[in-house]
């Protein structure tokens, strides 16, 4: 798509970028912190109360997330236990390495997907090391967990040269499409309504994150992107 010129669409996209691109914004990061880690009931309630209106205000009818009823804390906890907790059969923790080829053909034993500490994890760790950013011990095996990717992305957007920040985003958020597909397949025949409800909210959030971080707003008509979600 031609990016030059200042059409009304570009102006709108630029406006959105000003507010939420390239970082996803502090309110969404707060929500990410709640949805991607094991939050307490109070944390969950506070985040939903404080952040959802902001997202609604900024994205409004453009995004499916704003049209999805947030799950209750118990529903989301149930979803987190069943779908996001590592080791539980059928779970899909949001870790980039698990959805990317572990290594090239000379990387040794691990071929294909479904392994921790792949190339993406190695790269994130290297970036963190170079910046003297400490990855928490609990995330030692998953430096490319979506939560850390979002935080690192925000940091880079705030402090690093724009081209490098964009490169990081391009390299480390492309997997979210596959991740959403896997979530869709996982939930396809799920007859647990609470699980399905929470999954819907979670998927819409992840998809919103994906589109914002990958700057799809600038590549497409905002309304088309939002309405296709």
């Amino acid at each position, binding site marked *: 798509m031609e990016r030059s010129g200042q059409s009304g669409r570009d102006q709108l996209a630029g406006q959105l970028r000003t507010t939420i691109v390239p970082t996803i914004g502090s309110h969404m990061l*707060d929500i990410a*912190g709640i949805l991607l*880690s*094991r*939050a307490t009931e109070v*944390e969950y309630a*506070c*985040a939903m109360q*404080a*952040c959802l209106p902001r997202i609604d205000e900024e994205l409004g009818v453009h995004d499916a997330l704003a049209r999805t009823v947030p799950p209750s804390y118990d529903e989301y*906890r*149930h979803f987190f*236990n069943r779908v996001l*907790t*590592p*080791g*539980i*059969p*059928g779970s899909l923790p949001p*870790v980039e390495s698990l959805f990317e080829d*572990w*290594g*090239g053909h*000379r*990387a*040794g*034993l*691990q071929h*294909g997907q*479904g*392994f*921790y*500490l*792949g*190339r*993406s994890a190695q*790269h994130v760790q*290297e*970036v*963190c090391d*170079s*910046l*003297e*950013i*400490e*990855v*928490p011990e*609990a995330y*030692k*095996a998953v430096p490319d967990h979506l939560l*850390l990717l979002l*935080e690192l992305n925000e*940091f*880079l957007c705030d*402090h*690093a*040269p724009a081209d*490098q920040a964009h*490169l990081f985003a391009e*390299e480390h958020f492309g997997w979210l499409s596959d991740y959403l597909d896997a979530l869709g397949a996982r939930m396809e025949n799920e007859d647990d309504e609470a699980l399905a409800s929470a999954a819907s909210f979670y998927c819409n959030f992840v998809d919103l994150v994906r589109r914002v971080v990958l700057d799809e707003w600038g590549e497409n008509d905002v309304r088309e992107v939002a309405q296709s979600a």
Partner: protein
Amino acid sequence: MSRQMTRRGFLRTGAASAVLASAGAIGMTGCGAQREELTGEAKRTATLCNGCSNECGLWVNTVGGKVHTLEGNPDNPKSGGRMCGRGHGFAQMTYSADRLTQPMKRMENGDFEPISWDDAYKEIGEKLTSILAEYGPEAFAFIRDPRPNINFYGPRFAAALGSANIYTHAAACNLSLQSAYRHTIGGGFSADLANAKMVMFIGRSYADGITPADMKLFANVAVEGDCKIVIVDPRYNNSAHMADQWVPIVPGTDLALLLAMSHVLIEEELYDAKFVKEHVLGFYAFKKEVESFTPEWASEICGVDAEVIATLAREMAEAAPAAVVEPSWRAAFGCAHANSFMTGRAVAAFNALLGNYGQEGGALITSSPSIGALPADKFPTPPAAQHVRVGNEEFPLAVQGFGTNLAVLKAALDGTMKAVFFYQSNAAKGYANPAVWEEGLSKVDLVVSIDVQMSETAMLADYVLPECSYLERLEAVYTLGGKKHMVAIRDKAIDVVHPETRPADQIFRELSAACGVGEYFDFTAEELVEAQLATLGLTIDELREKGIVELPTSDFEYGKVPQFNTPSGKVELFSVTIGRAGLSPVITWEDRKVHPEEGEFYFVGGKQSIQSHTMTTSIESLMDISKTYDLERLWMNASDAARLGIAEGETVEMSSSEYTDTIAVHVTERLMPGVSMLPRTTAVRRPTFRRATVLAYARPTSFPSTWSREWGRP
């Protein structure tokens, strides 16, 4: 929003902005091609494979602290410098998405939620000590997959708590067979394939349950040697391709074949009379018993032509003592049938008639090296339990080292077993009758599972304690018996991947402390290994350098009849011990428990060389092999398929007393008519397991399963 209410700040970015400001840029181009290869320091570590119970010796090559490749240790007699595909595939478990990464506790709604190690230990310790106080140590049982490391820690843990209830998975594997050998010749034996002139394999296939060195030997002997190899199996298994003769047989009737071959040896006076006179007890009772078990009689039962039976017996006699019926493992008579125990006795008896024990090319009974007594101050021995192990009275013939885990299930069902711990053993899917195990465990107050992945048993547990993978831990030393004595090491090749997983030695040290018996585990794995090796005159550094070291303790020599560890010191074809347990004291005919009704099929399982029960079905690359080569189909003989109008690949419904499902059919001449076969990784759906999403695992021979198997039926 207050800062406390957010969940941000997972990354500590402290000085990062300053670093960035001074550097101006960061290395952001490394996510793709330049990291095709691992980088960093290369290292080689000795370990033992954990893809099955063979524990082949390996070298693990790591680069930059990550596993890169594995290769067989040439000095290890099991690997012989090679690895099987299963071993390569299973190593992927270390980085697998299916690994448990943190301790878990089952909530009231059935969900699992993380729990800290401290809290898990505290809650388990409180519950277990409360159960022990109220119901006594006999209300606690520990079931394990019996590998050397847990063979040290498991029984010690149970004993420290005063319980004698320590068991293995063997009642779902080869307990009938092993118990039969225990009470007939004093223990297990091996076939001297390298020097034999004729070997009969009953239900065992080296090409399907691969140990690399054995497979290589088998291939060499079969293809280039002058040894006649006979495969007795309802299916033409993958070893049969290299064998001289395939003898298809009705499942569960191997006993008839063996009794008839014994009949031929005795009637035609082809047996080793000298050996029998000097080393056999009960020959005349056995001779009397098999008088009527003619080849014609057996043929009616087992479907093998009478002349073939007689010929096989004569050929074995002619090749004796360099002829042997191989001991087998699980498939044919490990525990599958009501007559499995008697079949094992008949194998041992037939070999005795051949006079092949201790002879070149015969049946070898060898010893294993023993670890000496450890320093009592550092490794105090828990006092012996003051109660009889649950099941010992009801199943008195079971090999003591194995125990009968079904006794635990019975006690769980009747409410007397209050706490059950599992170590890497999947009773709820890998043993017989999964639904009954699920029911039994639901009645137990405290179920704890220590595992690397979330097995179906772990899913039924109250607490799941995640162990790190075998590549991340140092274990108690492994001793290997046989013609040579050896000791091997499973060393830690890489740092723990998931920080909240722990090795068994640490788990038992901490768990025992929480249970008030920490004094029996106040040592590290390294201290244990060093102490064990000291009793053998070795150091851990020596073992780490070579991976395996030969010991000078074997007294094996060909031609020397071994000591039979039976009450009489002889091969017991008539056993007072067995008679007192309520079974026939003399080896005789027993039928399998059920036969197919009109329109039904016999149902057998077959091993896949790339799978080890439920343990490997989460490995995508291994499951891909099973799927790519259509190893998940139900085998059916072509004549049966034609009669039923079933074509290759067609989907059929199969049903048993336990389970009904649909499955694709493989029409083949490689299976005798009237029999159906499923690979053992097939049959029960595991829909929530990301790898084995279509078909996974069950024990085909669990249909039917009863309490009255031969592990010591009273």
